[in-house]
């Protein structure tokens, strides 16, 4: 395998078709390029979302309320949620790293439906454009929060219809990607790549794809009903017309709770992929992790109404959903134990991706444990709809999915661009990011315990001190983010050559050149053992 440096195939970054430059990218069906298209667009949206978050924190200092009115603030948190959820964490790791690495990890040349894959990206961009349009047309930016609860979402004069339609279009992107991945995993595994020889990232993508495929249509239909109700008053959700507002909440959460597993499962998969490489030993409990992904996907579909404990559901429903919520916490705990055990008796090579992986585990534990707190009924009644939820959600989605995305980016960066970043600069960015993160979101959880409701333009005086702490934290966090992405951006252009296998990984992506050639493998590999097989390497 040492001859691949002289491979005849050019890198996927070189234009080989009839079109050149931007057009070559916009019409590509190569899964790696599509992965990068997602990466660039999603990071752009991410920073827009961060910017909005920054402004919201300033408003809570109360010194900027002359510039930002209550109506604008309500639009800001709605748009922040819509962008971060539908344009960043939901497509998240599958759209970027799933597209780029799923085929390589299972020894395939591309996904099953390359053109459908490009179409998914266009659906994604179309949804994003519609979302932006909804801010400036009709009655102005939606002000309902990203949950669009009826009947407020039916009555408000703002442009909810278009924003909701944007989410509907984005749903198609998600579903099509799901279909593509399921088919790819079923049909395109290399010879000898049995189910239990797949890298665990693929298992995570597989469970995620099923949720995307099965749950997204429900929210799509729900959102269409909102639009129909706004235009034609069909009376599904509006009690004034005989509808039921709780029906909306059920339908919304039947998708949106599984959606948080769409957001976190691939992140867990990436973490599972990174750990063996830096401990030089197999993952602890391969099958336990694979099955826990599948059971999270299954049980996670049955817990949606724990978002509605105060809505007036029957006590029996509350009891059942609280119980199931506790059950779904178990597979996540299993994963944490297996990850930590993978460090045991390894030979640990401490590198930036491992730092972000361990940061993920720490922050995800806080996110998970505070989630268990909310599952406990008597406690949920107090912290529901407060800043506690906002803090918890950011621990899971940013501390979890976000940090895992950063870890994956650091891990696969040398493979994707063939360049290496400055490790010192990445370590330097970690400190403000970590400290700022905890000031901001732990501060929010304390505020929530004190009784600060979410989505408040102005707060009562007793909450002010913690709001200041959180706002200062947000500045540190943003500083860390800028340092982090600045370092990576610099490395894309000016980074040193990374080599084909800088971390000493043993999964298939490390057996091909960096950056990978257009068709990944000169010859489809034959797989004879599990994914984290380090003996061979040691024998050399």
């Amino acid at each position, binding site marked *: 395998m040492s001859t691949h440096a002289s491979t005849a195939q050019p890198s996927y970054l070189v234009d080989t078709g009839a079109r050149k430059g931007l057009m070559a990218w916009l019409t590509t069906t190569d899964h790696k390029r599509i992965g990068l298209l997602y990466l660039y667009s999603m990071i752009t949206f991410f920073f827009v979302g961060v910017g909005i978050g920054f402004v919201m924190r300033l408003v809570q200092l109360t010194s900027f309320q002359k510039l930002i009115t209550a109506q604008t603030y309500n639009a800001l948190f709605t748009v922040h949620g819509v962008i971060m959820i539908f344009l960043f964490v939901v497509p998240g790791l599958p759209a970027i790293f799933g597209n780029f690495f799923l085929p390589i990890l299972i020894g395939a040349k591309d996904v099953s439906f390359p053109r459908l894959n490009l179409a998914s990206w266009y659906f994604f961009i179309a949804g994003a454009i519609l979302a932006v349009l909804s801010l400036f047309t009709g009655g102005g930016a939606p002000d309902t929060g990203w949950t669009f609860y009826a009947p407020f979402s039916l009555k408000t004069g703002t442009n909810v219809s278009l924003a909701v339609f944007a989410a509907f279009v984005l749903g198609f992107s998600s579903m099509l990607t799901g279909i593509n991945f399921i088919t790819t995993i079923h049909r395109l595994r290399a010879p000898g790549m049995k189910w239990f020889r797949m890298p665990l990232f693929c298992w995570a993508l597989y469970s995620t794809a099923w949720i995307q495929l099965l749950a997204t249509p429900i929210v799509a239909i729900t959102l269409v009903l909102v639009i129909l109700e706004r235009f034609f008053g069909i009376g599904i959700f509006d009690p004034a017309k005989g509808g039921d507002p709780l029906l909306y909440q059920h339908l919304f959460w039947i998708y949106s709770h599984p959606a948080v597993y769409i957001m976190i499962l691939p992140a867990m998969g990436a973490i599972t992929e990174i750990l063996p490489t830096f401990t030089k030993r197999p993952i602890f*409990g391969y099958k336990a992790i694979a099955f826990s992904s599948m059971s999270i996907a299954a049980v996670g579909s049955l817990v949606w109404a724990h978002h509605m404990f105060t*809505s007036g559901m029957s*006590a029996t429903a509350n009891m059942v959903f609280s119980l199931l919520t506790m059950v779904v916490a178990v597979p996540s705990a299993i994963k944490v134990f297996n990850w930590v055990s993978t460090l045991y008796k390894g*030979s640990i090579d401490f590198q930036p991706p491992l730092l972000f992986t361990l940061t993920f*585990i720490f922050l995800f534990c806080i996110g998970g444990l505070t989630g*268990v707190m909310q599952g406990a009924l008597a406690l949920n009644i107090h912290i529901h709809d407060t800043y506690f939820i906002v803090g918890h959600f950011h621990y899971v989605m940013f501390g979890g999915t976000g940090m895992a995305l950063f870890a994956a980016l650091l891990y696969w960066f040398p493979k994707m661009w063939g360049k290496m970043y400055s490790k010192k600069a990445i370590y330097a960015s970690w400190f403000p990011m970590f400290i700022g993160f905890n000031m901001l979101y732990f501060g929010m959880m304390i505020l929530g315990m004190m009784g600060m409701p979410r989505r408040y*333009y102005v707060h009562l005086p007793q909450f002010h001190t913690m709001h200041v702490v959180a706002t200062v934290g947000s500045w540190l966090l943003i500083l860390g983010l800028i340092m982090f992405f600045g370092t990576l951006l610099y490395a894309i252009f000016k980074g040193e050559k990374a080599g084909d296998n800088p971390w000493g990984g043993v999964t298939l992506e490390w057996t091909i050149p960096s950056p990978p050639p257009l068709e990944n493998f000169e010859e489809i590999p034959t797989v004879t053992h599990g994914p984290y097989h380090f003996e061979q390497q040691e024998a050399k």
Partner: protein
Amino acid sequence: MDWMNQAAISAQKSDAVFFYVFGLSVAFLIFITVLMIYFVVRYNKKRHPKAEQIEGHVGLEIVWTTVPLVLFLSIFYYGWTNYEYMRQAPRDAMAIKVTARQWSWSFEYPNGKQSKVLFAPIGKPMKVEVRSADVVHGFFVPSFRLKIDAVPARANTTWFQATKLGSYDIQCTVICGVDHSLMLSKVIVVPEDEFKAWYFGGEDAPEPGKALRAAEAHPDLKDLPPGLAVLTAKGCLACHSVDGKPKVGPTLKALYGREQQILIAGDYKTITVDDAYLRRSITNPMDQVVRGYPPAMPQTALSEQELNEVVRYIKGL
């Protein structure tokens, strides 16, 4: 104990669960973090150059599946039983009707008395039946750890028994429009005799808890001109001033006869404010939104007489 301004039995029930889960969580987090750091140091490649190729351990998997499951189920059970207590009001509880509307609260007691803040005698069970006149709101008293959504066309009930005299915030917790964060009120917990004096005291009895409420200006409605009383009771003044100050909506001062641009069916038109315009703006606010203001005003049900009083009052401003 005065943890987080705890002031009702429901708060004690909720906090007990919090301390249980919090204790377990801190123990778990410390355990995991210390273990991670220890392993990273102990098995660093310099100290431990050759990794042991361990694939897993079935016994351990069983242990760390069952132990968390048992702990999580204990959390569920504790949370559930304490919630059962918080949910079921005793038979002798006084039932109070709470009405949420964009963006104010009102309270009605069994004998028909009404108030803008909720009066509660200390140590007595009080049942709250929460309704909404428009969109979904959330009735939240942090010091009581009490929350229940106000859902239109539905009455949700919960109850509390205050353990401490004082004035406690009520906040709305479900986003309900532009003044969501101003949709506040208070629970005023007073001695029982003070409450009874007001409750049984006829129309002229002074509201209880005067000292507690001194800081907050909650005028007695019956002292106001009838039009202003309606505007106050229905929460209009949250967005419209009567003295010319800019708020979320246009001021009502000198509104009558003013020329302004309004959005009708997608076009701006200049109109002069008259009786018909005022009536239509109140009954169907979204039909004609004034230029430069958000389309945020809720529909508020007013009787014909109330509407007349309001229009007469605005004319005189």
